[in-house]
Structures are given as C-alpha cells and as structure tokens.
C-alpha cells in the first residue's frame, strides 16, 4: 500500500509541477480571495479585526475545493480511467498517495497565503509562525477529507456542484479548529486543545479513506 501511495503521490506532484495549475491559477485565486475578504470587512475593520485566522481558513476551504477538483481531473478522462483501472492499484494506496500529494499542494499554497494574511490582514508574524504546525495538521485533514469527498462526487458532470455541497459540512469542524488554534496563537486566548480536533479528524479520514476508497472506486 505504501509503495502504491508513493508512486501515486509522485505522479500527481510531477503532473502538478509540469502543468503549474497550482502556481498560475490556485495561488492567485487564493490571494484575490484574501483581498476580497479584507474588502468585505470594510475599511475600519480590514486591518485589525481579529478576523484574519477565520478568513485565512475560509479561503483555504475554497482552495481545497479547487485543488481536489484538479486532483480528480488528472485521472478523470474516461480513457485514462480505464487504462489506470487495469493496473489494479490498491485503492487504499491510491487514496493515501493522492492525499499526500494534495497535502503538499495545500501546504505550499497555505504557506504563501499565510504570508498574505500577515501582510494584508495584519496578522502578527510571530503568532502566525507559532500557529503553523497546527495549520499544517488542519490542512492535511482537509486534504484527506477532500480526496474522499472528491471520490464521492464522482467523475461525472454533476461533480462540480456536488463536491462543495458534500464536503463543506465535513469541513466545518476543521474550519473551527483551525481558526481557533490560529487565533489562540495570535494571543486571543491560550487554547492548544484545538489541534486535537484536527488530528482526530485527520486520523478518522485516513482510516475511512483507506477502508472505503475501494468501494467508491469500484463503480
């Protein structure tokens, strides 16, 4: 399973490196969404509202939806799907591999957007750095949840609208945990218990994905 996971992760990341969709489309989207969040707060609150952690994670939820859709698209063409299906890859390994690749992509995007949060929304740099470990775990959990929900929404025509509907309720606790932990690190309270929610969610999604990805993939 680990061998398949590494193979799939390497393939997904190589495709990403070649196509640069992340760099040229997803990161600019995230940056623009951050700017828009500031605009939505209004001139009085954009710089020092304490809303920076929440807005960062809200933007990351949408970034996750985009990267999940992209990760699905790599294998989604009917001809490719059949060719790959005949390799008989272990589904748990495929799930893990795609999750690893997506996690790396979310980490890269997240790091850039955290810098944006510091600059644009005036989040404290030291606090942001202190929160980064927690943010990393939460983004990994988002990646695992995203890959699973991506498989649920399927390769068909409806998947573009189905994916957000299916995944956003599951993203809610991760948004809460991520926002709270980041806020705590910025000094609005001393709460490190939030990492456990992200960690529990990450473990739950990894277990579910390894167990059930085959059931979704089969059809």
């Amino acid at each position, binding site marked *: 399973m680990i061998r398949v996971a590494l193979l799939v992760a390497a393939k997904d990341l*190589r495709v990403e490196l070649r196509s640069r969709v992340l760099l040229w489309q997803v990161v600019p989207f995230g940056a623009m969404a951050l700017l828009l969040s500031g605009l939505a707060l209004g001139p009085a609150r954009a710089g020092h509202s304490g809303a920076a952690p929440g807005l960062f994670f809200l933007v990351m939820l949408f970034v996750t939806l985009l990267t999940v859709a992209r990760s699905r698209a*790599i294998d989604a063409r*009917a001809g*490719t799907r059949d060719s790959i*299906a*005949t*390799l*008989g890859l272990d589904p748990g390994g495929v799930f893990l591999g795609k999750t690893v690749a997506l996690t790396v992509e979310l980490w890269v995007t997240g790091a850039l957007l955290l810098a944006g949060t510091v600059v644009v929304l005036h989040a404290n740099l030291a606090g942001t750095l202190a929160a980064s470990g927690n943010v990393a775990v939460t983004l990994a959990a988002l990646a695992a949840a995203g890959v699973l929900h991506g498989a649920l929404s399927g390769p068909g025509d409806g998947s573009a609208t189905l994916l957000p509907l299916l995944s956003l309720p599951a993203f809610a606790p991760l948004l809460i945990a991520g926002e709270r932990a980041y806020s705590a690190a910025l000094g609005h309270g001393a709460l490190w218990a939030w990492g456990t929610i992200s960690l529990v969610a990450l473990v739950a999604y990894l277990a579910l994905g390894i167990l059930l990805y085959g059931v979704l993939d089969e059809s």
Partner: protein
Amino acid sequence: MSEFVASLNDALVVRSGFPLLSGVTLEVAPATLTLLTGPNGAGKTTLLQLLGGLVGLSGGSGQVCGVDLARDDRRALRRRVGWLGHDSSFYDDLSVRENLTFAAKALGRPLEDLAPALERVGLRDRSEVLARRLSAGQRRRLGLAWLLMRRPELWLLDEPYAALDEDGRRFLDGLFADVVAAGASIVVSAHDHLGATLGAVNTVHLVGGRVESRS
C-alpha cells in the same frame, strides 16, 4: 479447470437501468484471435470491458483467466488482462517514458522491458515527448507499448485499427500474429477492416447486446 481463457454464459451487463449486454454466451480458446463485429451500440465495447473486469456482471455467469466474474474481485482480473480502449489516453503531462515507468512500477515489472517495448512500437525516439503532444496514431502505439510491457494472457483491444495508417495496420497485424504465436489470446473489436495477413480468426457478430452469429 477450464480449457478456455474466457467463457461467458448468458452474461448480462446493466448500466443505469439499460441492458448494454442482453445475454452473451461466448468462449475464447487459448492462443486465438477473436474479432467482434457489429453496428454501433451493439455492445462490443461493453463486452470487452466485461472481459477486462472494468464493468461488473449483472446476471448470468462467466470466468476470465480463472477469475469468476460473479463472485471474485474484479481487481484481480484487471491485472491479468491487457486493455486498450478506443480513446485510451494516459497522463497528458507525463512523457511517454514516464507513463510507461508508472505502469511498470505499478505492476511490479522490470524497467528493462521498457526500451524493447518502445523499440517495437516505433516510439523509441519519442520517449521524452509529453503524451499530450502525440498524434492519435502515436497514442495508440503508446497504448500498445503499455500492453507489451504487461505481457497479459488476454489482450482486449477496442477499435485498434482506427486512427492507424496503412503502416500502422500492418504493424498491428504482425504484432497480433506474434502474440498469438506466443500463446496469448486476443479479442478485438472492429467494424470494418481486419488485416488480410492474419491467419485463423474467429468472428463474433454482435447485435442488440447479444451474439447474433459467429464463424
């Protein structure tokens, strides 16, 4: 246990409430070439997909390469057959060599098989080209290289002659002859041409999701 590579008995394949195959009975003997003919929508592609474990059996019974289609895991079967769809594509952003390396590693095949396979299909000097830059015919050749590396017991090819020039067709005929001579079986679909240079061919004519005639 069975002298056939594949045998189907009244096989039914249903997708979204529509019977794609409405009861197919068929045997494929070892080291033979079977040609599926029939009009569009007759079920040729579905039959190949069924033999390749890509779609499930909804009724009837069948076994392919010793795998019981009704009971066993279809994944086990997929690894043992070679499949080339009519729009077979690979990872567009990977090169020819990277695509084949991915397949070889996934199947646990030695990477040394890669160069001869590329040589055989005539893609040796295009191995570093991204798959998206290949022509339709070259894609078909990439698919064949993918199959050559796998050395399956049963080759399943959907409309392999489409998009191939005269040269390509001759090449395919030669390849098929070699594969059959080496003891593997081939099932191909085609609605017109089949190489005149080929020897004995079993023709199965499909209409309305079932076998109408064979020769």
